[in-house]
């Protein structure tokens, strides 16, 4: 019953989701189009009391979603590297070799959030998200239901969070099937939470 690590599967974020909160804390390069009175201390590069027009700052997504809203226009922003032209070309060339975890563990979720804002590259970026996912998905499905985690841990490293969750699902269903084959599913077992707790107690008392 793990609700905390569900994350957004679309334009809406899950308010209580830990993953969504972490994702929306990632930053975007922004420029202030209006002055901001009294908040100069947020800009580390200056001692001024106010933020001047034209100030460049990296702002977290949760703030950009509000300030860059088409009806407000307090700031302008740009995509980060993974979502811009050069990287899109790399992904188009061969999406499956790219380390999506390194370039931002929430590649798809963050990209989807960016689409809720106006940006002149949003159409290309949207296409890129879809094509990238399509290309990588096949391999992930194959790996996750055909081999065990220790064989796959290296491959898992290059997956972003959405892909990792899919991978885990595949592994779980592989495990369940194998347990059923061996008649293990009829046996009662101690819960995972309990086993981990006892293990930690044992480790601590040693």
């Amino acid at each position: 019953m793990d609700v905390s690590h569900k994350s957004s599967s679309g334009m809406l974020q899950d308010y209580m989701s830990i993953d969504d909160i972490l994702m929306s804390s990632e930053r975007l390069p922004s420029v202030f189009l209006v002055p901001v009175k009294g908040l100069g201390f947020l800009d580390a590069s200056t001692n001024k009391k106010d933020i001047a027009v034209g100030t460049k700052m990296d702002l977290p997504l949760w703030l950009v979603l509000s300030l860059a809203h088409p009806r407000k226009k307090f700031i302008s922003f740009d995509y980060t590297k993974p979502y811009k032209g050069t990287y899109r070309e790399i992904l188009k060339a061969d999406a499956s070799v790219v380390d999506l975890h390194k370039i931002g563990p929430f590649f798809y979720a963050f990209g989807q959030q960016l689409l809720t804002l106006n940006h002149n590259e949003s159409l290309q970026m949207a296409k890129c998200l879809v094509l990238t996912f399509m290309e990588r998905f096949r391999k992930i499905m194959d790996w996750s239901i055909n081999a065990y985690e220790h064989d796959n841990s290296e491959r898992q490293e290059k997956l972003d969070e959405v892909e990792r969750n899919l991978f885990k699902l595949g592994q779980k269903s592989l495990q369940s099937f194998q347990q059923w084959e061996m008649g293990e599913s009829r046996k009662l077992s101690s819960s995972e939470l309990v086993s981990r707790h006892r293990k930690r107690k044992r480790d601590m008392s040693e």
Partner: protein
Amino acid sequence: MFGEKALDLIRELHRSRDGTLGPYNEDVVRQILEEMQILYEANQEDVAQVVQNDSDQSSLTAIQVRHDSLQRNKRCLLAYLYNRLMKIRDMRWEFGSVLPPDIRRNMSEREVQWFSNYNRSLSSYMRSIGPRGLDLTQDLKPPQNVFIEVRCVEDRGEIELDDGSRILLKKNSMHFLPRSQCERLIRQGILKQVA
């Protein structure tokens, strides 16, 4: 940037997501509430000034930024509390109605209260099912046999079963016992079912 402490709380949750409950971080929660107080008061001031002086709208952006920061802090606090409660709830089903003392130590006063309320609601619900009540935390898998063979994983001394008979739980001892008596002990990891 505002909301940094709040993000730390969430990172704490993220780090412990596969483990058991961490200690309730009273300190950081208080610091976040203090930041929210400062933001709130600053906005009260600016809004009053904007309302009074119609021609001076220069504070509007700052008000927006502080407002968004307040919302962000609120979200992080609520998510922190909520996710911890969900974990505590799950523990009722895994550990039973009495939690191990080291877990209980990590809960705040209110969380302990919440757990006992949850316990009470669950019990009264279970009692209300059918003529004699039904323990929903038992038989989580369809029962196959009346008696099962189990091995004891650690020394627990003597325990008494429902029918009055006593068994000695010594490490590695094997027993042939009614399923209903073992389920709880297996779940807690004290006994292990053998093929």
